[in-house]
C-alpha cells in the first residue's frame, strides 16, 4: 500500500478500501449534548453509523447495517454501515460526536480492546492562525478554539468487521 496522509504506518489487513474520512456536523446534533440519548438514537440507527456509498459497499461486499472496522495511523473505529446513494464513491462519513459509552464493540485490529470514537481517526494539525494567541478568542483551548470539522478531513482503511466481540 502506498503511504498517504494518515496511512503511513497502517498495515492493510486485506479486503479493505482506502477512503476519504470526514466527521461532519450530525443531523441530530441540534445542541452539543443530548443527541445520543435513547430517544434520538431510536430515531436513527441506535449508533452513529459510517455512511458509505453503495458502490464502495459493493466492493467491500457490505450490506446496509453490517459492522465495519475503520482504521488508520491514529486509531480504530468500529460501527455499522449506512449504505446510501447520497454518498459519492471514495468518501465516507461518520457524524461527530457519539459518546463512547454505548454500542462500541471491541476491535480485532486493536488486539481485542474497545474501539474508539469518531475522533480516534483524526488528528489536530494546528495552523499558525490557531496559535496566534494573546488575544481572547484567538488563544487555543481544547474544544473552544481550534481546528474545526473541515480540518478533520483524513484518510482511512475500511473493512467488514471479521468478528463481533463485546
Amino acid at each position, binding site marked *: 500500500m502506498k503511504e498517504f496522509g494518515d496511512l503511513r504506518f497502517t498495515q492493510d489487513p486485506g479486503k479493505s478500501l482506502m477512503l476519504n474520512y470526514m466527521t461532519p456536523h450530525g443531523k441530530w446534533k441540534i445542541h452539543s449534548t443530548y443527541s445520543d440519548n435513547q430517544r434520538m438514537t431510536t*430515531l436513527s440507527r441506535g449508533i452513529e453509523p459510517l455512511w458509505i456509498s453503495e458502490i464502495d459497499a459493493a466492493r467491500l461486499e457490505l450490506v446496509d447495517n453490517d459492522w465495519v472496522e475503520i482504521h488508520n495511523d491514529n486509531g480504530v473505529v468500529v460501527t455499522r454501515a449506512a449504505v*446510501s446513494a447520497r454518498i*459519492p464513491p471514495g468518501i465516507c462519513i461518520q457524524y461527530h460526536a457519539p459518546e*463512547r459509552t454505548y454500542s462500541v464493540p471491541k476491535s480485532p485490529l486493536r488486539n481485542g*480492546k474497545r474501539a474508539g470514537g469518531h475522533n480516534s481517526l483524526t488528528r489536530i494539525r494546528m495552523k499558525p492562525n490557531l496559535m496566534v494567541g494573546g488575544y481572547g478568542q484567538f488563544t487555543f483551548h481544547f474544544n473552544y478554539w481550534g481546528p474545526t470539522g473541515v480540518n478533520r478531513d483524513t484518510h482511512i482503511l475500511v473493512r467488514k468487521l471479521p468478528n463481533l466481540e463485546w
Partner: protein
Amino acid sequence: MDVRSQVAMVFHLDKCIGCHTCSVACKNIWTDRKGAEYMWWNNVETKPGTGFPTAWEDQEKYDGGWELENGKLRLKSASKTQTIFNIFHHPHMPTMDDYYEPWTYDYQELFNAPPGEDQPVARPISMVTGELINIQSGPNWDDDLGGSPIYARNDPNLESLTPEARRQLFAVEELVMFYFPRICNHCLNPSCVASCPSGALYKRGEDGIVLVDQNRCRGWRACVPACPYKKVYYNWNVGKSEKCILCYPRLETGQAPACFHSCVGRIRYLGVVLYDASRIEETAKLPADQLVEGQRRLILDPNDPEVIAAARNNGIHDSVIESAQKSPVYQFVNVWKIALPPHIEYRTMPMLFYVPPLAPVMSERQGTTLTNISEDLFHDIDDARIPMKFMASLFGAGHEDYVRYALRKQKAVRWYRRALTVGDVTAEMVDRMLREADCSREEAEAIYRLTSLCTFEQRFVIPPMHREEAIEMMEDPMEHKQETGFGFLHGPRRTM
C-alpha cells in the same frame, strides 16, 4: 345538505426540515409507556423510502383502506364473514419486524462493570424482552438515505416510474429526497372505524377527531390492517389499540396539538372545515381521477349563507362557523387548491392535506443547464428531480394534473416575490406566470403571507370546543374530576 365540522390540517412540505421535533414532542407526551414504546403517532419519513411500518403504502401486503367492488365500497381487510375467520389471526397484520423492536441501552453496565482492562460499554437491550438485541430496524431507519438499495428502492410509489427516472432518483448529483411527516389523517370515511368488531372506534361529532374508546376496545386489532396509513397501533401491554388523538385535551383548552405547536419549520396549519356528510359515500365511490376534486366539493364554503344556515340547523355553534371562515386549511385546500390529500385512492377521505414540495431541477441535460432553455416558464416543474409521477402517486391518486397545478402556482408565487424583492423579473413576466398558474396578484400575496409570515394565530385557528353540545356520551364527570375535557354522561343535544 348535512353540515358537520371537522378540525382539518395542512402540512407544507416545502418547509419541512426533517428535524423530528414533532415526533419527539408526541412521543414524550403520549407514547412513553410500556406497550407503547414502538408507537410513533407522529413520524417523519424520508421520501423516496419505505417509511414506518416498512412499506406501509403497499396495500397488497397490508390490505388497508377501501376498494370499489361492483359499485359498492368495501373494506379490503374485513367483511362480516371475513372478520369472523380472521378474528384470531389476520394475515395482513403488520408484525414486530414490520415496525421494529424497541430498544434501550444497558446503562447500568457503565456503573456496575467489574474492574478490567477496557472501558465498559452499554449494549442495546430490547424494551420488550429485556434481552440483548442486535438492532435491525427502527422507526426512522431509512432517514436521509435518499436512495439505498434496500429501502428507498422499495418505495411503492416508484412502481409507475420509467427505468430512466428510477436510475436518476438514485444517482449521486441527480437524486433528491424530501421529508414526509405523518399523523392520523382523521379521515371522513375512516376504514379503522368501519372495521372494528366491537364498535370501539368512533369519529367525534363536534370536530371529527377519530378515537379509540379504551373502555370498549377488546383488542381484536381489526383496525390495524384496516387503516391504510398504519396509524392505529396495538398496545401489547394493556391489550388495546391506540392512536393519535390530535391532542384533543390541548385543543379543548385552545392549544394546538403538540406536534403542531413544536414544529420548528412551522409547516403545520390547523383549522375547521365544514363538510357535507350526506355526500361522503358518493364521493368515496368516484373514479380515482375525480377523488381529489370530489373531496374538495365535499368541503363547503363557510361564507355561503346557505351553508351557514344548514350548519346552524345542524347545531353547529356560530363560533365554530366563524372559526371555519378563518380556517387556513380552507384557503390551502379549496381556495388556492395547492394542498392535496395523501393517497386518496385508499378512499378514506383523509383530512390532512399536503402542499407538495418544489424540487431542484435536473442539473444537466443534453450538456446544458436547464435555465432559460425554454419559452415555457414552468418547464422545471416537469423536469424537477422528483419525478412528477412519484408525486402524483403520493398526492394525486396517480393523476399528475393536481400536483402540477399546485407546483406551478407555488412557483408563480416565488417569482412574484422575486420581482418585488430582487427586482430581476419584469412585471409582464410575473403577470404572465401568475395568469398561467391560475393565480392573481392578491392571491399570490395571500399565499406568500400565510406561507412565510404566518403568526401562531394564523396557523392554528382553533374553535371553542363547546363540549356542552358534544354528540357522543362522555366519561363520568365524577370519576374524572379536575381533568381537562370531562363531559357529560347523558343528554347529548344533537344526534348522529
